[in-house]
């Protein structure tokens, strides 16, 4: 039994449960004025679109250099992976691992995780609901940390401007990398986790494995 089945809409802003006025195209929360939906509009489609865009940007982000160091000995462009290799030393390996996780593994993991969620929801899967919602939460929490790389890069560019000796310029890969992070965050935002539970409540006739108190069949 869900709020939608009862014809109720919950406000995404303040959480107020309200009964939508019949016939009205656009409904607003009586308390906070937030636009009301039963479910986020076109959630799966939007998420998928953002994911595809992120996946496309992910390739140039890793293949193109993110930073160009200009020293007296000439220009030197490095990709993220080259940076990881460069940092890998007996003393620098933790830093190297951080960059590897934050910049290469997390974005790809996010894209794959959301893709998995979108596909399972689309197929109306009802298994592993709790695991899937946990996955969604993890993706939501860790996703923003990938932006650290972009910030570090921009700070470096701003600070290291010792003109005749050394200067640092952002390289095109950085913009693609920033795009990957932003697009995956947008994808997470446009995904509606309630969709995970909808198939379970639709098939209410069947006995539920999930006997969690406030969700599922009453």
């Amino acid at each position, binding site marked *: 039994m869900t709020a939608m089945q009862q014809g109720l809409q919950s406000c995404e802003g303040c959480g107020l449960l309200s009964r939508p006025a019949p016939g009205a195209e656009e409904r607003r929360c009586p308390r906070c004025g937030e636009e009301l939906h039963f479910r986020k*509009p*076109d959630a799966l*489609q*939007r998420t998928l*679109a*953002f994911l*595809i*865009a*992120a996946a*496309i*940007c992910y*390739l*140039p982000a890793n293949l*193109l250099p993110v930073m160009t160091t200009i020293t*007296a*000995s*000439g220009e*030197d462009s490095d990709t993220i992976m080259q940076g990881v290799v460069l940092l890998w030393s007996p003393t620098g390996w933790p830093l190297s691992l951080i960059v590897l996780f934050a910049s290469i593994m997390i974005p790809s993991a996010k894209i794959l995780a959301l893709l998995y969620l979108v596909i399972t929801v689309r197929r109306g899967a009802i298994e592993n609901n709790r695991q899937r919602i946990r996955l969604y939460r993890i993706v939501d929490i860790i996703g923003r940390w990938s932006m650290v790389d972009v910030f570090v890069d921009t700070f470096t560019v701003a600070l290291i401007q010792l003109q005749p000796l050394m200067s640092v310029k952002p390289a*095109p890969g950085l913009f*693609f990398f920033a*795009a990957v992070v932003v*697009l995956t965050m*947008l994808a997470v935002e*446009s995904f509606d986790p309630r969709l995970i539970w909808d198939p379970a409540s639709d098939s209410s006739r069947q006995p539920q494995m999930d006997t969690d108190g406030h969700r599922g069949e009453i």
Partner: protein
Amino acid sequence: MTDALPDAPEAKTVTKKRTRLSFVWIFPLVAAIAGAWVAVNKIRSEGPRITITFLTAEGLEAGKTKIRYNGVDIGTITAFRLTEDHQRVIATAKMAPRTEEFLAKDTKFWVVRPQISGATVTGLSTLISGAYLGMEIGQSPERAREFVALEMAPVVMGGAPGRFFRLKTPELGSVDKDTPIFFRHLKAGTVVSYELDKDGQFLNVRIFVRAPYDQYVTPNTRFWHASGIDMTLSASGLRVQTESLLSILIGGLAFETPASGPLLPPAEADTQFTLYSDRADAFRPPPQNPQTYLIVFNQSVRGLAVGAPVEMRGIPIGEVTDVRAQFDQKTKEFSVPVTIQVDPARFGVKVIDMPGGTNAVADHRTLLDALVSRGLRLQLKTGSMISGSLYVSAEFFPDAPPVTLDWSQNPVRLPTQPGQIEAIEASVANVVKKLEQIQFKEIGDDLQKTVNELNQTLVTTRGTLTNTDKLLGSADKVMGSADRILAPNSVLDAQLGSMLQEMGGAARAMRVLADYLERHPEALIRGKTGEAK
């Protein structure tokens, strides 16, 4: 009508499924376009990949070392690998886009490292930036992707205006790659390379003469070593010749075309020239009509070198070509036969009515016979007192005993005259003999006597001087005492003061007495009688 309708089932209201595309699909679209654009750019900016084989990759770094042409980066070395025999290094380089036309089959690559040679300092920038690859674009129409790097940067860049020539020299001297070539003290070119001739007798030096100097190289141009300071200490004296300060330090070559020769068009490229050992050698005219003669000396020929001039009245007419010693078993005597080559025409002596034609030899004999009968003799003379070098002088001695030339010998032996040296030796001996006659002993004895007397006189004088000294000492003492007595605060001074006071008092008493007596003359008789009223 409507009432008559049967109880129709109510239409099921179905929420219309949204099928329209969400606007968010613009994101993947934009991303795809951006990605495609970047990919296309990347592919378009991809230049050809080439391999360059090196002996060693020292100083080169994959991903860092650039390939530069005229100071512009047009490629980067991306990777190294060893050849299968592990002897060489193959570098893979990524070239800039649209550099295909640079990669001719004869395009050259070399490693630019800092190089400081005598004449030039190059590649200083590589001290900071590290080595890079220099490149010279070839002319071949064929294209290639595999190259072998040169060991050293080419001395002359292809396409530089000028011409290559070849020099043949028996010895290299201080010539090396990069050695400058001077034309009228201007740097006109460089030595490009040198190699030993096939039979090992000569060295072939390849040189490059820059435009516009190459037009001054004509077929009769002379090249010579202008290495350092050419100091010649010969019979002609000390001669110092240099080309320039640079050539003193690192050596060099020079060329010049004799002004006297005919004006010829510039020489073809790759013309071969002879490299002479010095300027004088280079400009010595070729033999015209050399005659070889033998002269035998019975004196020391120390200082007579091969090449020493043969002079007639101070003008060179030939040179000594051979000096050796011979021992005659029969007479048990050493003699020194000297071979000379006389060629007056070569040294610029103008011969008037020179014999020519078929009877040239006969004429030559008659001429020489005539000269000898007039007293032509050869003798050794000292050219330079400093070096002791000798030269052969041909002089006329009309008083000399007559000699006939033996024309059956070849070369003909010319008569000699005891040289200047013998004459000098004789006079020196004479001087020595005269010196020996001087009675040094008597002179010495007289001198000794005089000195002894002088010595005695001096001793006497010294006694007198001692007495005078004593006298002066006493006088000094007297003066000292007087000084003490007269000094202020001395006893005498004090006593003198008190004495003067006493005398003053006495004088006053006398005056009082005198006054009293004047007023009372009777007092003389009566004595002082109380107070006068």
